[in-house]
């Protein structure tokens, strides 16, 4: 298993895009849509991170004989 640098960029890119969309939507008076965009971005990133956490837990379980 190797370090996935692309994943770091992917998460940061999602964060920046969500931030920009949030600003644009907020300024144009669509507060609800801005909130929903933030939430959608968060869920997408959470799904990616959950996979990584599961990988770590599986590795720890295998290696430390749980």
């Amino acid at each position, binding site marked *: 298993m190797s370090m996935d640098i692309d994943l770091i960029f992917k998460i940061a890119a999602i*964060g920046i895009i969500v931030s920009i969309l949030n600003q644009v939507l907020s300024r144009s008076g669509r507060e609800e849509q801005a909130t929903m965009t*933030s939430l959608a971005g968060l869920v997408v990133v959470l799904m990616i991170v959950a996979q990584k956490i599961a990988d770590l837990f599986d590795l*720890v379980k295998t290696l430390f004989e749980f």
Partner: protein
Amino acid sequence: MDEFWKASAAVLLTVVLILALGKREKDISVLLTMAVCCMVTVSAITYLEPVLDLLWELESIANVQGGMMEILMKAVGIGLVVEIAGMICTDSGNSSLGKTIQTLGTVVILYLSIPLFRGFLTLIQEILGQV
């Protein structure tokens, strides 16, 4: 050793990206921290694998009483996971959650080490019985 340089670079890069995300997207920057912590720990554990193999080899040479090494290994695993989780919680401003997970880890390790204490107690009783 290539993995070590990659991990170091990734951590430094993440710090800059978190600063770029700033306070606007605090939740995503916490998730980014979590992902990088997981990936770096996976790399660290990959290096730990031969060390653990050596420990198992030493255990078979020393003929340590059965089950003792497994308990120690589990304690190390729990300690590692709990430490990372605690640090992430503290970093994201939830130090109470961090302390709670660390307490949970300590209690679970104590629970796992009951057979060790029992073995020690039996040994003491045997020694005292012989005197």
